[in-house]
């Protein structure tokens, strides 16, 4: 395989996948919860909350990264406690890259899930409750399966945008070899080298392959889900 990519590049690919996977994995439950709060509940300050969710999308990613630095960096006003209490250092670490990817993709995930959630017929939820299911039970047994295509779509967007995330990552965790150097960072570097075109191209192709791979996977899963929930 070394014919195709250098070991460094393989490292970047591996790291990208890891970051994208974990960013999506960890943010999904929160995204579902957030989407549920936005779609199915009313609470004071909901408008503000709704706005906050979209912020990472509106702000330049570099600013997002800078805000992460200010808050979650080792001297950040949350980061210092993470460090002091749990010994968690996000800055310059893969974990930090994951957090950056998760934050940036969060609004996309929430939006996709929310749309799917709003499309779930509330009459079915009511029917489930008359059959003795609690709210939580209804959510797990009815709502969640019915909104799976949306969750999947959200996860796909999350993975895709995590794979493409650059600005927030580099600003927050910088580029440490083997720790935070994801494909976009490698590509960015390559495009800034006068002789980097070949490398940039290779990595771009890898990105595309990964994207198609995840899309393919997603559409396979999606088809199965659709067959299951009868929306073929």
């Amino acid at each position, binding site marked *: 395989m070394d014919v195709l990519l250098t070991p460094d590049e393989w490292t970047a690919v591996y790291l990208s996948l890891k970051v994208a996977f974990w960013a999506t994995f960890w943010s999904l439950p929160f995204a579902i919860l957030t989407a549920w709060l936005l779609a199915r509940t009313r609470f004071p300050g909901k408008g503000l909350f709704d706005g906050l969710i979209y912020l990472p999308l509106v702000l330049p990613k*570099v600013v997002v990264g800078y805000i992460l630095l200010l808050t979650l960096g080792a001297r950040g006003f949350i980061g210092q406690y993470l460090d002091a209490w749990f010994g968690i250092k996000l*800055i310059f670490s893969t974990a930090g890259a994951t957090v950056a990817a998760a934050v940036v993709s969060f609004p996309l995930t929430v939006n996709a899930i929310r749309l799917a959630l709003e499309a779930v017929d509330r009459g079915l939820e009511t029917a489930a409750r008359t059959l003795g299911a609690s709210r939580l039970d209804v959510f797990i047994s009815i709502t969640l399966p019915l909104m799976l295509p949306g969750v999947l779509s959200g996860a796909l967007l999350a993975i895709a945008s995590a794979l493409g995330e650059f600005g927030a990552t580099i*600003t927050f965790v910088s580029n*440490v070899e083997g720790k935070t150097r994801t494909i976009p960072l490698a590509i960015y*570097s*390559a*495009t800034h080298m006068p002789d980097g075109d070949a490398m940039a191209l290779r990595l771009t192709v890898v990105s595309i392959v990964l994207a198609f791979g995840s899309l393919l996977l997603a559409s396979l899963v999606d088809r199965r889900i659709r067959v299951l929930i009868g929306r073929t």
Partner: protein
Amino acid sequence: FATARAEEAPTVFAAASLTNAFQDIGKLYKDETGKDVTFSFAASSALAKQLEAGAPAAIFVSADTKWMDYTENRDLTLKATRVTPIGNSLVLIMPADKAKDVTIDKSFDWLAFLGTDGKIATGLTDSVPIGVYAKTALTNLGQWDKVRERVVGAESVRAALALVERGEATAGIVYSTDAAIAKNVKIVATFPADSHPPVEYPFELVKGQDTPAAKALLAFLVGPQAKAVYAKYGFLVK
């Protein structure tokens, strides 16, 4: 659709690190000649690629010689017009409250200086010019292999500076000009001039855009009034 017309104010492609100096000089030029200048500040690489794609800029100012060579080699800029009026030096900085002066030479013990977890912030070591210079310098000092895992590459020199300002990195390698304007950081050492190629900012006219107006502007950008501004921002003026 708006289209860029040739008779508009000439556009200067400039490395982002020149932002403040050029904006001042742009005002001086307007006062002097009554003419406008348009600047586009971005990474040298991006600008070079835009030139390659046919961007109708008049003057290209790169943050290193490599990208100027790149455009020259592709016959995009006029080699004959190259001037290198300003340079910079590489310095080691630390947060002001932790600063302790050191001397950088081949025997300097970087690991001891950084402590167990410490990091040095600079630009991306394979692409952002400051990072490339830093890597070359450390290599020439025979230290690169020891510290490479401690080097964190930021997207720009400004981002590296921020990491030091915030105290996230123990130290940083930046240009002296950046160090001069930064708050809360202190220069603790300057890299020996022979540890890296000279930091230079070559200027060239873009091929096909060498109008009299562009030539006049280039002359102004390397003229005495401009040089005063460069000096004010800490550049080495030749």
